[in-house]
């Protein structure tokens, strides 16, 4: 049955099973549309009839508007994404770093075993300093890139209401769950780091895990702060 009066339309919107903020949006839009039709010359009955059946409208609106609420399941899913992103970032950082040091050692042995070249040795010293400085930055850089990709379309960043609290808390919960998921698999990560050592000759497997652990703590601390800047990143 279609709407018989404007009051009935407003009452319908108030009865929608949807967040309060979304009911306000729906009401404003339907009213704007209604008055625009009236301004074009339609009668009130015609403008109301254009919305169709109340039941059909409810069936279409409610699932969509409820989708704007962030649930605990969303937080768990985002936590899994964060964990997987951070895990992937650690692997990439370990391989890139391992490959860099492997090449560095090959060059060092070639220069030291063959001929003495002061300039080349100085260049290697600079390369070693550069490598040491960028090891930690590499981990964090990959983590930021992987996280931005994993969470690039998350609705929580668009100012939505969250069952678990404000969007920043949602991000914090997700980050914490992600970290917890990754920590559970530390023994697996140690085996993977062993593989990294095998393929790249990188002797710093323990160093890699230490860097990863420190970065994980950093991630947990910046999680709620990250939610503040995320809306701009998603714009």
């Amino acid at each position, binding site marked *: 049955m279609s709407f018989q009066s404007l009051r009935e339309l407003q009452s319908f919107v108030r009865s929608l099973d949807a967040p309060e903020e*979304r009911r306000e*949006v*729906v009401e*404003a*839009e*339907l*009213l*704007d*549309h209604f*008055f*625009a*039709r009236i*301004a074009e010359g339609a009668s009130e009955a015609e403008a109301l009839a*254009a*919305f*169709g*059946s109340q039941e*059909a*409208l409810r069936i*279409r*609106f409610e699932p*969509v*508007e409820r*989708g*704007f609420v962030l649930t605990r399941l969303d937080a768990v899913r985002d936590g899994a994404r964060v964990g997987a992103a951070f895990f992937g970032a650690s692997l990439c950082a370990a391989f890139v770093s391992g490959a860099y040091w492997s090449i560095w050692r090959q060059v060092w042995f070639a220069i030291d075993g063959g001929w003495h070249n002061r300039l080349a040795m100085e260049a290697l010293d600079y390369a070693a300093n550069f490598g040491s400085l960028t090891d930690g930055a590499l981990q964090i850089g990959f983590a930021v890139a992987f996280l931005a990709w994993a969470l690039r*379309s998350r*609705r929580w960043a*668009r100012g939505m209401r969250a069952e678990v609290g404000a969007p920043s808390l949602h991000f914090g919960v997700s980050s914490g769950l992600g970290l917890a998921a990754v920590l559970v698999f530390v023994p697996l990560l140690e085996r993977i780091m062993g593989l990294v050592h095998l393929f790249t000759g990188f002797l710093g497997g323990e160093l890699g895990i230490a860097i990863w652990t420190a970065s994980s703590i950093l991630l947990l601390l910046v999680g709620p702060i990250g939610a503040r800047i995320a809306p701009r990143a*998603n*714009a």
Partner: protein
Amino acid sequence: MPKRPADELPRGAMRAILLSLLADRPSHGYALVQALQKRTNGALTLKEGTLYPALHELEADGLIDASWETSPEGRKRRIYSLTPRGRKEAASWRDRWLAMADLLRDLLVVPHPKPAR
């Protein structure tokens, strides 16, 4: 006389059409209804009961953004515009539907009968 196109939006085309209309310029709901009627000479219409849920779904999916402004009559009005992801999606949908149209044209065109000898 050729049949007039159906006055109901084809199934599955709602998202593609809304994204395509918004690719032209940011609009509010009523303006989208008018734009579609104008571009199709009244052949296709957007029903209000399906329009706004579809717009909200696109917004929830991150394909369009919404902002408030005040209409000339002083009412609150929501203006929708495409996000960068929405632009890519609009282009992708356009290509898909055009490819489908070409396919259907080849399939449904009846070849001219050969003249008798």
